[in-house]
């Protein structure tokens, strides 16, 4: 089965310090390397900040474009991975290993099977 790991990061009250930023980047970098060299990896990427998001809806043939992400929340989608895993437990194991789970939360969603 394929699962998408959606990494949500909390909107923080303060900017992380340069040192915090650096150690976090190193952690994500290390995880990224681990996952990409594993058999589970399908694809993945960090996303640009939610401030760069644009949302479009087509209603009655007209497209309505709004600034910002789909839902205004305290947490925003910061990146994702798609992984191949035999079970939810295996996908959970990968997600638990991802630093995103420590700094934010990770939603695990199976890709719907192709008809």
């Amino acid at each position, binding site marked *: 089965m394929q699962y998408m790991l959606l990494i949500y990061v909390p909107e923080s009250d303060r900017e992380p310090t340069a040192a915090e930023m650096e150690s976090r980047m190193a952690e994500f970098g290390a995880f990224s390397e681990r996952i990409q060299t594993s058999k589970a990896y399908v694809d993945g990427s960090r996303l640009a900040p939610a401030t760069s998001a644009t949302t479009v809806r087509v209603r009655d043939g007209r497209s309505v474009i709004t600034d910002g992400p789909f839902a205004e929340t305290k947490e925003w989608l910061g990146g994702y991975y798609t992984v191949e895993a035999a*079970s939810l*437990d295996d*996908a959970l194991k990968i997600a638990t290993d991802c630093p995103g789970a420590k700094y934010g939360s990770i939603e695990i969603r*199976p890709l719907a099977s192709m008809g």
Partner: protein
Amino acid sequence: MRAWADVEERIARCFRDDAGRAVAALARAFGDLTLAEDAIQDAYVTALERWPRDGFPPQPSAWILTTARNRAIDRLRRERVGREKLERVARLDVAPQPPDAAPETDMTQDVDDRLGLIFACCHPALGVEARIALTLRTLAGLTTEEIADAFLTAHATMAQRLVRVKRKIRDAGIRFDVPPPERLEERLDDVCTVVYLIFNEGYTATSGDRLVRTELCAEAIRLARLLVAALPDEPELMGLLALMLFHDSRRNARAGADGRMLTLREQDRSVWDRASIGEANALLERAIAHRRTGVYQLQAAIAALHANAPAPDDVDWLGIAALYGRLAEIAPSPVVALNRAVAIAQADGPAAGLAAMNAAGVTELDGYHLYHAARADLLAQLGRRAEARAAYVTAAGLARNEREAEFLHERAASLGS
């Protein structure tokens, strides 16, 4: 005509004895509980058509399992989305076979299937209410209606909840397997939580006026026995079973003749079930020998000090306070702090108890009736009648069980006005 009825009766007996096991085996192979249940149903319907005509197969349970397996494969073939699943199933060696060539099911396999089903039903990725409902439905064999009634839920709502949770298991890829050793303890904890919640629902009956919903207690104990038998080296499992047996030993002593709930002190100890207490003592001893303490063992040890005291005045309250202290270290909670304070009051007097109660954490329990009831008890013992009465009234207002509320109002009234 009579012969026909006999055959039908024999098939019904087969179904009662074997269907649960067969569902567990198929669910494990296909990762889909609904599919497994439907296929087993189909197989029994087929049996009802064929066995009276062709005679009983040499191995009825194996015949059912193989027929159901073939039915499930047929169903998956008809559904386009089933193909991916079929590939997995093919790897699991459940290809169609002629029913009578089926091998006898092996016992270890059987235990693993049941365990796998328990672990899937209690998976932390499922909502707690859904876990409880599913466990009762699939493992305890309660009907949807019975579960709905036990939890004061509309039948349709409960049916919907069960459909949804089975779908989540299938779609999320929750496997019906015993977790690997490194994850066993954590997952076992989730299983214990569900079993203990079922027991507590039966034991305390959070709403309504039936004091003991015996069936829920009995099912929780049965499940725990099954788990202890299958995983004999898990001290927390033994602790959980011991804990429930200690509580359950008092089932006939908890209510007075008028149905009112009795305190431990008021209960007639000669009515406590000695066999249950003996079994629990032995389990607890076995668990402690593993030297891996945990919340269930500690709670069972506390229950043991109550259960084994010949009279209320013989209870080792210092020991109980110490065990609650230990429990507070590994699983701190306001309720544990409260119980520790109550034990201290018993050991060292109401003033010491009240002091412990005013300390760390207990005041967070403002919405918990037992906190106010315990405070009221201590205040009454210290002669602070007005404060005690007010605390009993607060407690009564918060109690959800009608009998408990009644009991607390009586206490308030006994302090005069």
